[in-house]
C-alpha cells in the first residue's frame, strides 16, 4: 500500500506542468465539502422541523386558492387575527401559463394536503365535485346568500362575485357609440378591433359554457364562428385583454370586472359596460369555496369557510380593490358597478351542469375553434 506522499508524487509526475492540482485547491475542496455537509445537515433539520410543524394539525388550515394574491392574502390574514388559526396559503392565478392548482388537488386526492379550495369561479369547484374531491358542507353563514348559484348539497358555496364586462379604449372610441352587448364583438364596426381571452381557460371558458346554455348549441356556435369572421383576436388571458385595450391595440375587449377596475385605478383611458342589459344579461362570476374531502384539518376548514361566507367578508371584498359584488342584497355594491345587484340583469345560466358542459366543449367545439384561431384549421381532420 502506498502512502499519501507517494500518491502525491505519482500524481504530480504523471501530469503535465499545468495540470497539477495546487495544494490550495485540495484544501479548499475539503473546506467546501465540510461546508456542504453542514449545509446538508441544516437542510435536513429544516425539513424535519417544517414537517413537524405540518403535523401540528390543530392550529392550521391549508387553503388552495385561484384568487389573486392581492385579495386572498389580506382576507386570510384577517381570519388568522380573528380566530388565531394560521392559514397556510397556496396561490394560483387564472392565467393559462401553469398547470394549475386544480391538477394538484386531483393528484393529491388519495391523501390531500389542502383543507379548502377557494376558487375564483364556480366551474372549477364543480369540477372538483365531479372528481369526488369535495365534501359537502352547508355553512350556517351561507344564510342570506342566493341559493340558486351554490350546490344544494353544499359541495361548493358561492359568494362575492365578479362580472364579465366589455372594456373599451375611450381615446379610440371618442365620439363613437360604446358597445352594449357581446354581440358588438361581431359587429362590422369592430372588425379586427376586438379581443377576448382563450375560451378554453378561466372565466372566459365559463362565459362560453354559459353562452351555449343560454343561446343554445346552434346560435352559440354561430356566434363563435362569426367572431372568427370578424377577426376578433384571441389573447392568452383576461389580463392580456386589459393590457392590449389599454395600450390601444384594440378598441374593445371582453374581460372580467376586476381587470377593468385595476385599469381604471391606474388611470388608464378605458370605460366599461355590463353587456346585454337589454338582452340576455351579464354573466355573474361568483367565488366558490369547497371543503376538501379527507383534508387534514376539517374543523378549521369549516371555520374558514364560515368566515369567507360571512357578510363581513363579502363587505370587505366589495370595499377592497377587488371590487366584488356582494351577493347579499343588503351590502352596498362597490362604487365601480354604480348600482346594486338587484338592478343588474343577469344571464340565466345554471352553474351546476357547466363543468360537464365545459369538459365536452373543451374536447369538441371550443378546441376546434381555438385551433382555428391559432391557424391550425387547415391541419384539422375532416370531421369529428
Amino acid at each position: 500500500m502506498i502512502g499519501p506522499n507517494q500518491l502525491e508524487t505519482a500524481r504530480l509526475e504523471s501530469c503535465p506542468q499545468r495540470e497539477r492540482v495546487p495544494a490550495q485547491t485540495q484544501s479548499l475542496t475539503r473546506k467546501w465539502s465540510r461546508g456542504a455537509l453542514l449545509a446538508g445537515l441544516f437542510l435536513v433539520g429544516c425539513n424535519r422541523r417544517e414537517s413537524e410543524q405540518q403535523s401540528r394539525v390543530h392550529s392550521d388550515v391549508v387553503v388552495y386558492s385561484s384568487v389573486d394574491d392581492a385579495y386572498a392574502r389580506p382576507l386570510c390574514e384577517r381570519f388568522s387575527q380573528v380566530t388565531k388559526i394560521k392559514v397556510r396559503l397556496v396561490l394560483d392565478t387564472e392565467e393559462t401559463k401553469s398547470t394549475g392548482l386544480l391538477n394538484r388537488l386531483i393528484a393529491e386526492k388519495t391523501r390531500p394536503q389542502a383543507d379548502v379550495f377557494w376558487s375564483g369561479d364556480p366551474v372549477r369547484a364543480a369540477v372538483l365535485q365531479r372528481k369526488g374531491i369535495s365534501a359537502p358542507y352547508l355553512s350556517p353563514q351561507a344564510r342570506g346568500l342566493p341559493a340558486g348559484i351554490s350546490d344544494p348539497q353544499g359541495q361548493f358555496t358561492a359568494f362575492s362575485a365578479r362580472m364579465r364586462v366589455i372594456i373599451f379604449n375611450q381615446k379610440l372610441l371618442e365620439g363613437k357609440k360604446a358597445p352594449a352587448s357581446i354581440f358588438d364583438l361581431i359587429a362590422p364596426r369592430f372588425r379586427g378591433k376586438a379581443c377576448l381571452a382563450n375560451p378554453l381557460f378561466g372565466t372566459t371558458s365559463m362565459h362560453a359554457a354559459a353562452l351555449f346554455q343560454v343561446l343554445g348549441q346552434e346560435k352559440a356556435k354561430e356566434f363563435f364562428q362569426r367572431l372568427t369572421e370578424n377577426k376578433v383576436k384571441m389573447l392568452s388571458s383576461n389580463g392580456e385583454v386589459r393590457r392590449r385595450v389599454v395600450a390601444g391595440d384594440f378598441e374593445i375587449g371582453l374581460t372580467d370586472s376586476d381587470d377593468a377596475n385595476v385599469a381604471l385605478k391606474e388611470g388608464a383611458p378605458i370605460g366599461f359596460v355590463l353587456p346585454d342589459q337589454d338582452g340576455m344579461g351579464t354573466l355573474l362570476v361568483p367565488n366558490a369555496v369547497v371543503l376538501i374531502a379527507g383534508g387534514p384539518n376539517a374543523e378549521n376548514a369549516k371555520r374558514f369557510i364560515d368566515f369567507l361566507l360571512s357578510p363581513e367578508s363579502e363587505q370587505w371584498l366589495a370595499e377592497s380593490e377587488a371590487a366584488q359584488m356582494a351577493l347579499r342584497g343588503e351590502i352596498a355594491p362597490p362604487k365601480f358597478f354604480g348600482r346594486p345587484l338587484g338592478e343588474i340583469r343577469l344571464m340565466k345560466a345554471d352553474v351546476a351542469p357547466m363543468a360537464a358542459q365545459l369538459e365536452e366543449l373543451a374536447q369538441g367545439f371550443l378546441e376546434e375553434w381555438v385551433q382555428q384561431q391559432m391557424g391550425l384549421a387547415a391541419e384539422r381532420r375532416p370531421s369529428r
Partner: protein
Amino acid sequence: MRLASLSAKVRQAIDWRLPVTAAILSAAFLPILWSVISSLKAESLPEMLGMLHGPFLGALRRSLILMTAVVAGSLAVGWPGGTLLGLVEFPGRRVLLASLAVPLFTPSFLWAIGLSSFRPFLAYRHQWWLDGFPGAFLTGVVQTFPLVVFAALLGARTLPASLLEAAQLAGGFWGFFKASSRFSLPAGLGASVLGGVLALADPGPAQIMGYHGIASEILIAFSARYDAGLAARKALLMTMVLLPVVLAVSWKVSLWSEARLLGREMRKANRRFEGILPAVTVLGFVFIYVALLSPALVGLTRPLKGAQTADALQYGLTVLKQSAGTTLRYGFTAAVVATVLGIVLSLTCGRCHPFRLTVLLFSFLVLSLPPSLHALGFAGMAAQLPKSFDWFMRGGNAVGIAFGLRLSPIPALFCLRAWSVMPESCHQVAVLHGVPAFQYLWRVALPQLAPAMAGSLLLVALVSIADVSSTLLLLPPGAGTFTSRIFGVIDNASERILSGLCVVYVLSGFILVGFFAIVEALWRRRLGGSR
C-alpha cells in the same frame, strides 16, 4: 500483468457502474414514469395512435420548427459570443458575464410579458414582430443564448495553448478566433439543443405570444380538461416522435466532444489582444446582446413612472424580504441534489462511450418532457406514500429535491465534459500504483471537476428559481418563492406593481450572481492566476 489488472478494474467498474447509473436515471425519471404509468389503460395505445391526427401533428411540427429556430438563433448569437468572451480579456467582462445570467433566472413568462408590453413602442403594422412565431422565437432565443454563451466560453477556455498560438501566428486574431470556435462548437451546440428542448416544453411564452405548439396541446389537457393522464400520454407521444432527433443530436455531440476534447495539453494561451479588431467584435456582441434583451426589459419597466414608482418598488422589496429565504433555499437544495447526482453519473460513466451516450440520451429526454408532468408525478407519488415520508416528499425541501432530480442531467452533462478533458494519464497512474478509488476521487478527480461543479450548481439554482409551474404544484402550503409571488399577481395586480416586482427580482438576482462572480474571482486569485 498490468493489463490484466486494468481489465479486472474495468470489469469491476462495469459491475457497480450499471446499477448506480440505472438507479440515478430511474430516480430522475421516476416521477414522469409514475405520471405515465398511472395514466395508461388498456385502450391507451389505440388512443395514442388516434391522437396522431392533423392538429396534434401540426402542433408538433410547429414546436419542432420553433425548436430548430431557437437552436439556430441562439447558436448564431451565443457560439461566437461565448467563444469571444472566453478568449478576450477586457474591462467589464465579469459584469457582462454576470448580466448574462439574468435571462436564466428570469421566468420565461416574464420575458414574454415584457416583449408583449413593448408593443406600444412599435407602430401597429410592425407589431407582428412580437406575435406568434416571431414572439415565441425571440423569447426562446433570449432565454437560450446565455446558456450557449456560457457553454462556448467553457469550451474556448480549455483550448490547448500550442494550437491557439500556432493559429494566432498564422492568422492573427481571426485565426485564433476561428480555431477556438471549432473547439467550442460541440459545447455550444449541446447547450443550444438543450435550450431548444426547454423552449419546446415550455407552454408559457407560446401561450402569451399565440403560437400553438405541442406544449400548448399538453397544457390544454392539463388546464382545460383537467386530465393529467391525457397530458402524460400526449407528452409520451411527443417524446417518441422527438426521440430520433434527440438520439441523433446526442450521438453526434457525444462523438464530437470526445474527438475534440479528450486528453491533451492544458496550458492556457495568452488572451490579451492589442488592436481594434477584438474591441470591435466584443462591442458587436454587446450590441446584439443589448438589442436582444432591451425590448423585454423596457416593456417590463415601462409602467414604472410617476409618483407611485417608489410604492411599487417598496412592495417588491417587501415581497423579496418575505420570500428570499425560501427561494434561495429551494434553489440551493435543487443545485446540491442535482450536482451530487450529476457527479456520480459522470463518474460512473467515465470514458465508457455506451454509458455516456445513454446518459446523454436520458438527459435530453428528461429535460424535454414538461416540468409539470414531473412535478405532478412527484405530487402523486407523495400522496400514495405513507405519512412518514412526508418530511421528504412534502416538506420544505420537496421542491428542491424534485427540481434536483429533474435537472440532474445538467450537472451530469457539465461533469461528463469536465471528466472527458481530464488527462487519462492521471487515472492510469493511479491504477498502476493501486491508489484506492475513493482517495483518487477525493484528491485528484474532484478538484479537477470543481469548476464544472460550481457552474452546474449555479445554473441549476438559477433555472429552478425561475420555474413556476413545478413550484406551484409542489410548494408546501404557506411557503412562497419570489417567482410564485410574481405569478400570483400577474393577472390582476396593477402594471406598476408587476413592474416593481420584476425590477426588484432582476436586480436582486443580478446582485446575487455578481456576488458569486466576485467570490469566484477571489478564489481563482487565491489559487494563483486565471484559469
